[in-house]
């Protein structure tokens, strides 16, 4: 059932078992899982069914660190940011969950193995037809992985969701669920706790049209995205002056992204036939759409004490002696490419066939992991939005270590290509003393309410419950203590399904009566 908050009588109080704040990938996944469970649910969404500029403008905020498109990287209506999701899915690596002594603040309180069954279910939710993320033999029709030398680089796979627009795809499910009432155009203006701050007592809601009403839940899940989750906790400060869940000052800290470098390197290969179809673009294979990528092996990352990077191939063209003049305008250094290929063919590669091409140039794109950084954070701005709520102030900070890691990983790639013999790598990402501007990002908002067993080190525990509060839970990528390198949606859906199971079982046990 859908209810437009603008039509709710002013001053209404709605009592419910569970309130879910945010109808994006996480919120909708949880509501669907609990549909028909007998648990009454209020699913609260700031927007309507379509994009609305005034609602979207509630995302506007203030920037204090690396420039970031805080408003345009998210969408504030039913379905949330999945409304512009690119559909890239891949689980985090097992190592991403581990404490790595060279990555400060790393380590999840759960393991990848614990999440594996939920990844399977998340794959269904995201409409994947395969979960062969690591198995090249499943995609053999598209070719063979490049036989790069050494043990530092590995070929793995992204599998594309159609992409699932959660708002469109699952709207009928929410509509049909008798135990779910979805309040549209309704903004949470405060999560109000009990006097001792130990429980959520009620939610104050408001619409841009001026209606004010309340929801009194037994349990509340905050699932509004990594930026908004922190903002809502911080401005819910009428009882707890520092904001909810923030007695240890962790709310809003450790904001992470995946810095995307559009052109960190260029590859040359002697024979394009060796570059399997699945590397080059979105490739339809066996009813799925997949893409091969390069990741770095756990042994390599441990040995070199680096963060992860994922690389995919971009645009390509044949290299001939005329490449310099043909490509000169786009790349003034293109004239060097035939020289490089000739040298490679003299040293390690097969000689060029008579009248054959010297080789091919392939572009590369990458996304990289950033170190969790407490100074990379969300706080509240002095500026207010039209609801009178403090806007977000985001200080995204990258570190030299993040840049060093990426550069080192590119050098590892150059080693792997060179020792293979049929390829060479040009590294365009420079060594840096500091990293103050981002060339790109993934619209991946991570961290800000991180998971940790120790309340001093995080905002929620391994069950996604806010430390020190008995009935407030968090869903979404704000939970990630570290971000890995790959797109976060599949993982956040897996975590949401796990939370749904947990709450279902707790409700069945009568834990929230």
């Amino acid at each position, binding site marked *: 059932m859908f209810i437009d908050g603008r039509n709710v009588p002013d001053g209404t109080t709605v009592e419910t078992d569970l309130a879910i704040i945010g109808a994006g990938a996480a919120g909708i996944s949880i509501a669907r899982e609990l549909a028909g469970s007998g648990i009454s649910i209020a699913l609260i969404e700031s927007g309507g069914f379509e994009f609305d500029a005034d609602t979207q403008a509630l995302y506007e905020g203030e920037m204090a660190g690396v420039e970031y498109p805080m408003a345009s990287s998210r969408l504030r209506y039913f379905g949330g940011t999945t409304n512009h999701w690119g559909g890239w899915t891949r689980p985090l690596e097992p190592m991403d969950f581990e404490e790595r002594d060279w990555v400060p603040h790393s380590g999840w309180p759960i393991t990848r193995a614990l999440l594996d069954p939920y990844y399977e279910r998340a794959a269904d939710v995201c409409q994947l037809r395969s979960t062969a993320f690591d198995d090249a033999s499943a995609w053999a029709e598209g070719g063979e992985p490049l036989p790069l*030398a*050494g043990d530092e680089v590995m070929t793995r796979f992204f599998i594309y969701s159609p992409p699932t627009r959660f708002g469109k795809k699952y709207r009928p499910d929410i509509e049909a669920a008798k135990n779910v009432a979805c309040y549209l155009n309704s903004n949470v203006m405060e999560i109000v706790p009990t006097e001792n701050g130990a429980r959520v007592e009620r939610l104050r809601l408001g619409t841009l049209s001026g209606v004010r009403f309340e929801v009194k839940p037994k349990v509340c899940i905050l699932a509004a995205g990594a930026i908004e989750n922190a903002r809502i906790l911080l401005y819910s400060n009428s009882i707890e002056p520092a904001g909810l869940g923030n007695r240890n000052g962790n709310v809003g800290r450790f904001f992470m992204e995946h810095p995307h470098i559009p052109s960190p390197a260029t590859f040359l290969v002697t024979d394009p036939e060796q570059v399997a179809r699945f590397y080059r673009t979105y490739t339809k294979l066996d009813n799925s759409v997949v893409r091969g990528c390069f990741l770095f092996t756990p042994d390599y990352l441990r040995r070199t004490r680096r963060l992860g990077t994922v690389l995919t191939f971009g645009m390509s063209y044949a290299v001939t002696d005329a490449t310099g003049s043909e490509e000169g305008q786009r790349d003034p*250094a293109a004239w*060097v490419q*035939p*020289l*490089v290929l*000739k*040298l490679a*063919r*003299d*040293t*390690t590669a097969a*000689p060029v066939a008579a009248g054959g091409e010297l080789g091919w140039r392939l572009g590369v794109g990458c996304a990289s992991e950033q170190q969790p950084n407490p100074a990379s954070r969300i706080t509240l701005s002095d500026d207010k939005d039209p609801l009178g709520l403090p806007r977000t102030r985001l200080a995204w900070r990258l570190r030299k270590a993040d840049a060093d890691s990426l550069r080192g990983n590119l*050098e590892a790639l*150059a*080693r792997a*290509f*060179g*020792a293979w*013999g049929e390829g*060479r*790598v*040009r*590294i*365009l990402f420079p060594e840096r003393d500091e990293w103050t501007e981002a060339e790109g990002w993934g619209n991946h908002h991570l961290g800000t309410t991180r998971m940790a067993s120790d309340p001093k080190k995080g905002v929620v525990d391994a069950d996604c419950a806010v430390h020190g509060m008995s009935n407030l839970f968090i869903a979404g990528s704000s939970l990630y203590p570290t971000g890995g390198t790959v797109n976060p949606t599949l993982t956040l859906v897996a975590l949401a399904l796990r939370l749904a199971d947990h709450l279902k079982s707790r409700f069945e046990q009568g834990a929230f009566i």
Partner: protein
Amino acid sequence: MAKHMETEHDDAHPAAPHPVSRRDVVVLGGTALIAAALPALLFRRAPKSLSFDADVLLKLLADPEAAAKLGEIWFAESRPGETRAVYETRLARRLRAFGWSPSATPELAHRALAATTRADYRTGRMVEIEKWQFAETEADLCALAALVMREHTPEA
């Protein structure tokens, strides 16, 4: 760790000269005599023997001119040194470790070159030229090609 502790308690500075024994004096004396004679020998024979090595090495390249262009970029970017003999001896030493000799067949020579180059990449012995990552062996070949090319190019 134990060795490190030993060093910390040792008065000897790492750069301090070692004590010289009577036997060392004899050996060093002989070496000095040979060293004194060497420049004259090299001067008499160097141009021919060095150019012989360069020719043999550059025969490994199908397009030495292309390699020379890369070598010139390297010189301009990184100033790695421009003494031909340095490159010749270094290349010869590396290639010999993989079975090469000046009289090696072209097949054997190329196998040795490929093995040397791959070993460089594997162990991270790389050089950056115009942001391209090359094996040190490749860069040295490029440098050598550039130096030989200069000798064959009349000065303007």
